[in-house]
């Protein structure tokens, strides 16, 4: 660390604040506990003891105010789309969205004839990671979550963005 090297005692770790923030955010992304369809069952299985999301610092929160990640698990109907949007708006920054399964990603089997289904949740909220599958296995969802952690870690919240 250049000039800071050997200037402090042994129990002091020197890091850039940017990286520290990224590390802190990425290792405890609490997710918003709500499911829309069958993908929610896989999400529950992921959070349950066999796959144990606590390993990667994730626990479900029942309030959007306390959640960092929203896992859109299942078919988003047009009726629900407005609610999903409202819930997303209630979350505090920084906030992330995972689109789980083909329904949330593109409408899935309701792509052509589902008059009531939103064709992709990215039409109402910005999506960070898409997890394919119908429904995705817990391993697939964990892969998506790890990708999201990578993304969060690579963010530099304090660095001024250059045009």
């Amino acid at each position, binding site marked *: 660390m250049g000039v800071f090297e050997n200037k402090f005692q042994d129990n002091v770790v020197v890091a850039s604040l940017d990286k520290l923030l990224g590390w802190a955010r990425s290792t405890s992304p609490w997710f918003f506990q709500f499911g829309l369809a069958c993908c929610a069952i896989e999400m529950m299985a992921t959070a349950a003891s066999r796959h144990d999301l606590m390993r990667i610092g994730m626990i479900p929160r029942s309030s959007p105010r306390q959640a960092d990640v929203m896992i859109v698990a299942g078919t988003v109907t*047009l*009726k629900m*789309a*407005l609610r999903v949007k409202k819930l997303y708006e209630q979350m505090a920054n920084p906030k992330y969205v995972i689109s789980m399964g083909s329904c949330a990603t593109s409408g899935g089997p309701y*792509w*052509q004839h589902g*008059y*009531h289904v*939103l*064709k992709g949740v990215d*039409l*109402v909220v910005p999506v960070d990671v898409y997890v394919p599958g119908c429904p995705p296995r817990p391993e697939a969802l964990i892969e998506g979550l790890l990708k999201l952690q990578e993304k969060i870690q690579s963010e530099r919240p304090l660095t001024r963005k250059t045009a």
Partner: protein
Amino acid sequence: MTDNLEQLINDAVEKALAGDMDAINNIEDRVTRSKAKAALVKAKREAAKEQTEKSSDENSIDSSDVKQDLTINENIAELLIQQFPDDIIKELSSKEHIQIQSKNWLIISKYLRDDPACLFDSLQCITGVDLGEESDLEVRYNLHSMTHRHAVEIRISCLRNKAKVPSVESIWRIGDWFERETYDMYGIEFEGHRDLKRILLPEDWEGWPLRKDYEVQETYHGIVVPKVKEGWE
């Protein structure tokens, strides 16, 4: 030797059939004894079979005396025609359903629930049917009686642009949600329903999705519902 054994077994079985089991039990050779018991079981089975065949023959003679087997729908239709001669459309009814006019449906449904010969205490399903853009809409009711263990299907047709049917929500309480769902999907109005509004779709939805002439709306609260699906198929 073998002829002798068979003779012995046959004799023992005949005696056993007549009620004397000792004839078999007293056979000293174990193998012969078990053979005799097997033969006895077989003989008894055949006897029972003959018995049932004989009795079923008698039954069929009995049933042919009754003039005709009516299905439960036809039976109930006969009952209804006696009570409400103008409301039952006999030409359009079949073995599987009873077609009725919508006008007196509330009274008829009360009769179906309370009459001792009907006692339809449960409304199992209400279905809306769109038979095509040229024809009318139809409502179908599946009724079941716990007491008599019988079920009928009632059908009522209604006009497409003036779809109105009396509500049976006051007769069978479950009809509340069934009728709301039928209203939601087909726009059939159930007159006398105390809270007729959409049950599944949002209240500001336009159109009746399960009608054949339904057009998917282009946007819903500013969200585009794409109709052209490019890059597929």
